[in-house]
């Protein structure tokens, strides 16, 4: 019976799913050729304050998406922290790896800043910059730094919520000014987007590094004990 399921029913089901997907793709590409969303999105990129189309979609057209995505990231981190304290870290690495890490971590932080700035007009942006910061944290954790380069517990908590916080504050400030939630006025769009992206970069980097270390951060009072 189990063999019947795994050798007959399962392949049949998988082939059926694949067939439906191919059929849906065929219908989507041969269907009516009206105005595509892409043309509309590309035509209005100059009005969004940045010239990289992906960044303009992420932080202008679909800013709600990005806000909720940062909230999902925060929720995942809270889930990891709620599962108990962190396991003991790695043994301190030997001289060569320590030396390489001492060179690489500042370079990664510099590259993250570059990515963040360049994201306005070239490939890059908050997610890539945050990933580089997170990679710096992972590298420090692998080299045996128990804190993975993360700050103490109160600062860590503030940094983790920074992305959502800056996003919401900008949205609420725009509402107070009489515009919609996250409807940027054209002149200020570039700077508002850069402000939000900076907050998001720090939050993503800290969240990824803390997720790699795993476990709830030690409280300041607990951390003082050896």
């Amino acid at each position, binding site marked *: 019976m189990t063999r019947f399921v795994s050798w007959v029913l399962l392949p049949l089901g998988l082939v059926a799913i*694949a067939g439906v*997907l191919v059929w849906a793709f065929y219908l989507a*590409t041969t269907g009516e050729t009206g105005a595509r969303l*892409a043309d509309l999105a590309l035509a209005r990129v100059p009005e969004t304050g940045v010239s990289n189309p*992906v960044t303009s979609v992420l932080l202008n057209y679909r800013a709600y*998406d990005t806000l909720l*995505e940062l909230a999902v990231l925060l929720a995942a*981190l809270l889930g990891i922290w709620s*599962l108990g304290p962190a396991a003991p870290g790695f043994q301190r690495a030997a001289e060569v790896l320590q030396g390489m890490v001492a060179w690489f971590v500042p370079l990664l932080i510099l590259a993250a800043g570059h990515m963040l700035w360049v994201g306005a007009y070239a490939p890059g942006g908050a*997610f890539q910059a945050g990933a580089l910061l997170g990679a710096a944290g992972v590298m420090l954790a692998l080299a045996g730094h128990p804190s993975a380069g993360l700050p103490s517990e109160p600062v860590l908590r503030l940094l983790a919520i920074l992305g959502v916080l800056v996003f919401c504050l900008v949205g609420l400030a725009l509402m107070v000014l009489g515009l919609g939630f996250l409807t940027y006025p054209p002149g200020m769009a570039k700077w508002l987007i850069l402000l939000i992206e900076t907050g998001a970069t720090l939050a993503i980097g800290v969240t990824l590094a803390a997720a790699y270390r795993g476990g709830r951060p030690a409280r300041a009072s607990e951390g003082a004990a050896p």
Partner: protein
Amino acid sequence: MIATQLLYVGCGILLLILGLWSFLVHPPLLRKLIAINVMGAGVFHILVAIAYRGIDTPPDPVPHALVLTGIVVAVSATALALAFGQRLDRDDDR
């Protein structure tokens, strides 16, 4: 251009199916996680292939933004699942 799109969309669908098969067949948590990540990669690959509009035309930025948020959500889900697995192992040892 349509042939390239078809090739890459087909590749993405195959990745999705392969990941789904592995997810259903292999019991260990780590193998299930790899399978889910391959499934997700298949979905992202389909979206990127749909956004592609020829080598001289700029691609559609909207699916690209969706995939970018998707990648970050996928890694956070993986980290959470691994933390759950670690906690379950620790409870088994006790």
